[in-house]
């Protein structure tokens, strides 16, 4: 086995990177992939609580890198999927505890044992971003259909492409409201694609179940049936190399509400 390292990034904060990382990890693991999700946001640990694993953390990635534990002890097993692991970040304020070299070495050590290594990058374009980008084979840039997020995504895509290492970069459009796009009150998938000229690997609709799933610590991809859960599962299949066409979005109109979601 030789894992693909996927770094999830965005530039702007609050667009749904951590939710995306958690859900894609779950969706891939439920499809039989061996997955580890690494929280790359030193000092602002959040992947653990989003995944509902916060009370299981004993050691984190920095403990391992600094020799305080074995790698196996830092890998938190998520029993809700066959082979899903979390590597938490440290709550230290010392951001230099990780750097591009250490993160690359850590991923290289994990590669032989996994199919996918998902790295959840912090917001911003500083050291934390550089650290999480270093090991990436491919990047997923999470964008909201909103001007500041799209602009920051462009900046991040430019930074990714400026590196020597060749990487595939795809967009995930998150929190799209088909109804608002229909009213021409929100940037459409086509608008964003045109402005950023980057391929889109998936569109996750605005979905109320995301907040309650985060409240409970159960990512929607673990068996949820809502629109977002379906979108994550489709992105996971595309990441595995399946050809899954992008579905036209339903605007959630009267008929759909009447008959409920499938």
């Amino acid at each position, binding site marked *: 086995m030789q894992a693909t390292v996927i770094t999830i990034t965005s530039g702007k904060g609050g667009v749904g990177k951590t939710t995306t990382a958690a859900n894609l990890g779950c969706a891939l693991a439920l499809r039989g992939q061996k997955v580890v999700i690494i929280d790359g946001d030193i000092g602002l640990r959040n992947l653990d609580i989003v995944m509902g694993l916060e009370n299981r953390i004993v050691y984190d990635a920095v403990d391992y890198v600094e020799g305080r534990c074995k790698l196996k002890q830092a890998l938190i097993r998520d029993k809700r999927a066959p082979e899903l692991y979390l590597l938490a970040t440290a709550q230290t304020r010392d951001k230099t505890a990780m750097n591009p070299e250490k993160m690359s070495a850590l991923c290289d050590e994990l590669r032989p044992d996994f199919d996918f290594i998902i790295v959840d990058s912090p917001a911003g374009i500083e050291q934390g971003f550089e650290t999480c980008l270093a090991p990436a084979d491919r990047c997923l840039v999470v964008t909201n259909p909103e*001007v500041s997020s*799209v*602009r920051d995504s462009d900046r991040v895509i*430019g930074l990714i492409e400026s590196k020597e290492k060749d990487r595939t970069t795809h967009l995930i459009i998150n929190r799209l409201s088909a109804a608002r796009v229909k*009213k*021409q*009150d*929100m940037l*459409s998938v086509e608008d964003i694609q045109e402005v950023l000229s980057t391929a889109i690997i998936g569109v996750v609709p605005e979905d109320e179940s995301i907040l309650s799933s985060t409240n409970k610590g159960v990512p929607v991809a673990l068996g949820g049936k809502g629109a977002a859960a379906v979108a994550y599962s489709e992105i996971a299949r595309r990441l595995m190399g399946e050809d899954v066409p992008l579905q036209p979005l339903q605007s959630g109109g009267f008929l759909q509400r009447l008959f409920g979601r499938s």
Partner: protein
Amino acid sequence: MSMFKQWFGGRKSAAEAKSRLKFVLIHDRAEIAPGMLEAIRDDIIDVIADRLQIERDRVAVNIEDEGGERRLMVDIPLAPARRRQGS
């Protein structure tokens, strides 16, 4: 855009978002601040206006991006030609 137009079927906000994004991204990518173009515009007007009658207010300096090839586009309208008087 007037308030009236904004409230009753003016340009939709998505279209506005898209055109504003295209504008800022051209400048972001070229690493040229929009204010820099204003300065270039003023310099060009100074140079040209010494020699030609131009419509100062309508001089436009823009960066255009077509398929990754960027150009500095300068549009300088000349003042309306006047027939020579008398003879």
